[in-house]
């Protein structure tokens, strides 16, 4: 986030206070851009009005893909390409293939899920982070408000943040 001085940051030092502050600030008609925290706070995303993530759907799809790929590979090699009689069993020996099908499903789900997670959050190795306050990853909870996207004046926003229990109000 560039240094255009259009962000007002409310810095909190307690997770419950920031959670309450979100609804308090919102009730005054101020639009909150995002809240940054050192650890997950349950209920914060719903308080901010973020939509529920669709990651579980993606995970399920990748799982299905893994299952299909594993079955396709085994069927192709064991039934079509080079069938062999092993212990007098059918070429299509489905019960024997359950372990590898399962492993394939898990493998695709895990890697597909994590890749989707990284893409959806724009995370990748070597990315330069947009740090609003260096203490976010330590012990501070920061509420970021974009002045340009709000009708209220900067002074009103600062007052609202202070009233909601912010220990510091900064401009970035």
């Amino acid at each position, binding site marked *: 986030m560039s240094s255009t001085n259009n962000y007002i940051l409310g810095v909190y*030092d*307690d*997770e419950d206070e920031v959670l309450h502050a979100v609804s308090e600030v919102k009730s005054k008609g101020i639009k909150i851009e*995002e809240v*940054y*925290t*050192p*650890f*997950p*706070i*349950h209920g*914060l*995303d719903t308080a*901010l009005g*973020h939509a529920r*993530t669709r*990651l*579980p759907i993606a*995970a399920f799809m990748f*799982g299905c893909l893994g299952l299909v790929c594993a079955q396709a*590979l085994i069927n192709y*090699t*064991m039934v079509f*390409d*080079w069938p*062999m009689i*092993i212990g007098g069993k059918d070429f299509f*020996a489905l019960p*024997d293939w359950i*372990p590898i099908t399962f*492993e*394939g499903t*898990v*493998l695709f*789900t*895990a890697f597909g*899920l*994590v890749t989707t*997670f990284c893409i*959806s*959050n724009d*995370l*990748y*190795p*070597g*990315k330069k*982070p*947009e740090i*609003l306050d*260096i203490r*976010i*990853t*330590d*012990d501070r909870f920061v509420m970021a408000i974009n002045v340009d996207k709000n009708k209220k004046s900067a002074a009103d926003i600062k007052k609202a943040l*202070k009233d909601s*229990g*912010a*220990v*510091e109000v*900064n401009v970035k």
Partner: protein
Amino acid sequence: MSHVVSPIREKLVTGGKSYHDVTHDICKQVEGEPTKEWKWAFGISCIIFAYGAYCLFYTWWQGIGVWGLNKTVGWAWDITNFVWWVGIGHAGTLISAVLLLFRQKWRTSINRSAEAMTIFAVLCAASFILAHMGRPWLAHWALPLPNAFGSLWVNFNSPLVWDVFAISTYLSVSLLFWYMGLVPDLATIRDRATTKASKFWYGFFSLGWTGSAKTWARYEYMSLILAGISTPLVLSVHTIVSMDFATSVIPGWHTTIFPPYFVAGAIFSGFAMVQTLLLITRVVFKLEDYITIEHIEMMNIVITITGSIVGIAYLTEFFIAWYSGVEYESYAFINRATGPYWWAYWMMMTCNVISPQLFWAKSIRTNLMVSFFLSIVVNVGMWFERFVIIVTSLHRDYIPSSWAMFSPTMYDIGDYIFSFGLFFTLFFLFAKFLPVVNMAEVKSVMKGVSTNYPAKKAKASTKTDE
């Protein structure tokens, strides 16, 4: 978020730590110069690793004829060590995945190091898989790759191929789970870094993490799903390892009880190894406020429960051997307990079944020295369990003229030493360069479970700077 915590719950973090104290205490060992203790420990493990690497190299160069195997006992220390390490490698995922699903908050201080241990243990196990192939440069033949034999594929009906898939999936998914858990903490180190190198490397691997509410919400879902798929995965891995034996027709191996019995044994030995390492780590890195007696006690309770399951499995196995009426099966078991390897059998019984029962006494399970000693006893016992299953089932064949004993050579022992060298070298590197406790998770459970929370702070210090 502050959870409602019953007042009878023990505090998970003691010493009245604030969030900043957590960051400071955990980052300290990453940021500071290596301590003298660390240098000594790392140096010794490097020497062990080097000696082991020589033995392993010699084994690869000469072939597995340098081991003490004979035509009757074709699997001995190699597979014993493999199963032992894979078993140890189960605790990390169990702690981070199963205990996450059960919302056990005490996992937060120990899951990071337990998962690291898992990954290193699986690598040790993999070294035996490669070594026992005899021609490790042909290890890729176990994978379904197109080849010059007209594509003669691998046999997907074989438990040994299932094992290849299970172990490699387990290793890669555990690594992924562990790494994603590390990302927020790497960002913490990045933001505190003072040197250019650490700014770059921790910055590189922290993926540009900022800790926004949206990212955290998705992150929580991702962790939950990874835990959900890792739980059956971890159970499947040792199930499949047990099928390497159970689907054979060797008396003593051909038993349906093997999958649950192996899984219980894996959790048992894995927790014991976590216990051993944690008891050392908490002292060396002064983490007594994070890894408390409460944690040690919880671990000991899990060891007692899984040890009892293993004990029941031993007895059931014996009963079924008699009840089945198969004389070969009965003989295999009587030979285990009273044959030439009776000492290994009773070593296993004492270490695995009797010793964990001592933890029923609270004074014993909260005693650090006794816990440390018993955790090693359990791992010795679990090594003997695999030795008993593998060697005593093989050494008396169907034909008495081919009966044989197994005695290890220096290369059997040397390859085992290699795995210890590898394990401890990696563990000490991890302990120096990465945070050994998951800071973000510990912070998230502190309110309500730490001693100075929930203490309301004064709102007075409000200040503005423009």
